[in-house]
């Protein structure tokens, strides 16, 4: 056993000296390889962290959102729907929400406007997200003027800025009092944008939604799990877009690696012949070449992955944020919670490191089973 380990140590030493001997080639390969891993890992880490972020944000959201459809479009929901829903078994809490979008031509951005929930805001005050504050250059005590549906201008005093920790979902958020909201958007009393319901037993959510459609045929219940699924699809789609964009560089790397790995140079073939002639077995040569491939790919994988980790979690994925975050104008600035998914890591490893090692080993095996004399000639 000790002799076996010692033999491997010698083989690794020899491999390292081979890499140093061909340092130009090794460095070029390592750089390209690391860059590819960095890009792929960045996208994977970022989308995974965003998904997790979305899941944790939605954890405390209501199980069901009820919208009303009229001619296939969203319509305001009358208050009496709340009383009707109250008769459904399993529903513990129900309330109406007022929310909508406001287009600000000054900065060409959409704000998400909502009413301030439990917090009672005076009619002339608003709370804004960090993205709005940044874009409009607002701070506490400043005034923001918004034009209503009927063209009247209303000025609101910024009474609070929303916490930066929640910037992923609050960057473009603007909170105001229900009365101010109704005035701004011309929504009559007794109507809401939508309703939200809490259900006691999570297993009954789908059943409650089915009953709801029977009770209120013009309603459309949206479940929390459906929203999560939508987020998931959106992030997967964005991830796919990035991968397609990266396809060119991935392909270039594959060609580069394949060329490097499969086309043994005359020098490499001669070296294998010499090693065989002086007493190395085919398996020794293959082990040595395995270590060569493994060292390059593992170092590239480690460097690329660590760089991607730093890029995503410490530098907000500057290279990909415009595609992956997807806000029109108000990009949120936030620190993602560092998360490493084992399966994702294994997938990346499987599709980058293993093919490279195999591509290295196969031509070496072909050469090393040939008679040394023929290889050296």
């Amino acid at each position, binding site marked *: 056993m000790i002799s076996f380990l*010692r033999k491997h140590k010698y083989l690794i030493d020899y491999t390292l000296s081979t890499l140093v001997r061909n340092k130009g080639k090794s460095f070029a390969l390592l750089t390209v390889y690391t860059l590819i891993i960095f890009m792929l890992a960045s996208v994977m880490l970022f989308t995974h962290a965003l998904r997790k972020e979305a899941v944790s944000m939605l954890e405390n959201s209501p199980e069901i959102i009820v919208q009303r459809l009229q001619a296939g479009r969203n319509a305001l929901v009358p208050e009496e729907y709340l009383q009707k829903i109250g008769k459904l078994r399993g529903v513990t809490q129900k309330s109406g929400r007022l929310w909508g979008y406001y287009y600000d031509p000054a900065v060409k951005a959409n704000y998400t406007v909502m009413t301030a929930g439990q917090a009672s805001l005076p009619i002339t005050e608003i709370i804004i997200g960090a993205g709005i504050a940044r874009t409009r250059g607002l701070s506490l005590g400043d005034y923001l003027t918004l034009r209503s549906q009927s063209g009247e201008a209303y000025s609101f005093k910024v009474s609070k800025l929303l916490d930066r920790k929640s910037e992923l979902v609050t960057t473009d958020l603007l909170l105001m009092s229900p009365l101010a909201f109704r005035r701004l958007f011309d929504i009559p009393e007794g109507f809401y944008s939508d309703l939200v319901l809490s259900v006691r037993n999570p297993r009954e959510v789908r059943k409650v939604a089915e009953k709801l459609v029977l009770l209120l045929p013009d309603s459309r219940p949206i479940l929390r799990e459906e929203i999560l699924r939508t987020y998931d699809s959106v992030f997967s789609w964005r991830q796919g877009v990035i991968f397609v964009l990266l396809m060119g560089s991935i392909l270039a790397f594959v060609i580069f690696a394949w060329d490097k790995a499969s086309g043994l140079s005359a020098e490499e073939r001669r070296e294998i012949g010499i090693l065989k002639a*002086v*007493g*190395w*077995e085919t398996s020794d040569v293959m082990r040595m070449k395995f270590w060569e491939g493994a060292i390059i790919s593992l170092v590239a994988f480690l460097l690329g992955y660590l760089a991607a980790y730093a890029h995503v979690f410490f530098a907000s994925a500057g290279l990909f944020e415009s595609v992956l975050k997807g806000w029109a104008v108000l990009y949120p600035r936030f620190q993602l919670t560092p998360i490493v998914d084992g399966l994702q890591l294994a997938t990346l490893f499987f599709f980058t490191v293993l093919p490279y090692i195999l591509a290295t080993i196969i031509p070496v095996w072909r050469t090393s089973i040939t*008679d040394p004399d023929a290889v050296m000639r």
Partner: protein
Amino acid sequence: MLIQLTDVRKVFNQGKANEFCAIQGITTHFEANQVSCLKGASGSGKTTLMSLIGCLSRPTSGRIQLGDRVISGLPERFLTEVRRHTFGFIFQRFNLIPGLSVLENIMLPAYPQGLPYKNLKARADRLLDQFALANKSDNMVEWLSGGESQRVAICRALINEPQILIADEPTANLDSQLSAEFMGLIDELRKAGKSVLISSHDPAVFESNVIDRLVELHDGCVVSEDV
């Protein structure tokens, strides 16, 4: 008898348009503890025959026997085993690995045995001393002169303490003084109990009194054998 060849043939590119028979049914033998020389012009089959004897390639037909053991039909794995423990090779162009030091080149054949580094180093140091290379131990091989490179090649061939040393055109890249020195080294190895097989068309080698047995080849056939 150390090595016995019986009706050995080697055909390259068999069945193809460019088929070529390099060795045409050679039957000969080589004795232990002797310096034997294969003499012949370029293309006479010396290198091919040395490769067959040294298990670097396999004969198309015929039998090669090492002591009591027939080695011509052995599978690759066993051939390597025979090669490692029985033969040491000195190639015409030395075939040292550039970028490695003298010491690393010498120790290279012993790596797969997994010996403790201390023992390996001691063995290599002994050879470096014996062949006056101790002060070159850490030098890269590409910096060495022709004579030094050849001595490194000899050390490398001896590191696994082989029974038989095979040298293919060993003086082709040396001047007459270095060639004479080389033959002196071969003589010492014979005195140390080694068997040596040399291929050469250099008179400095085959006319040397170090040679015990001379086998002359022409177009893949033995034309004369002298003792």
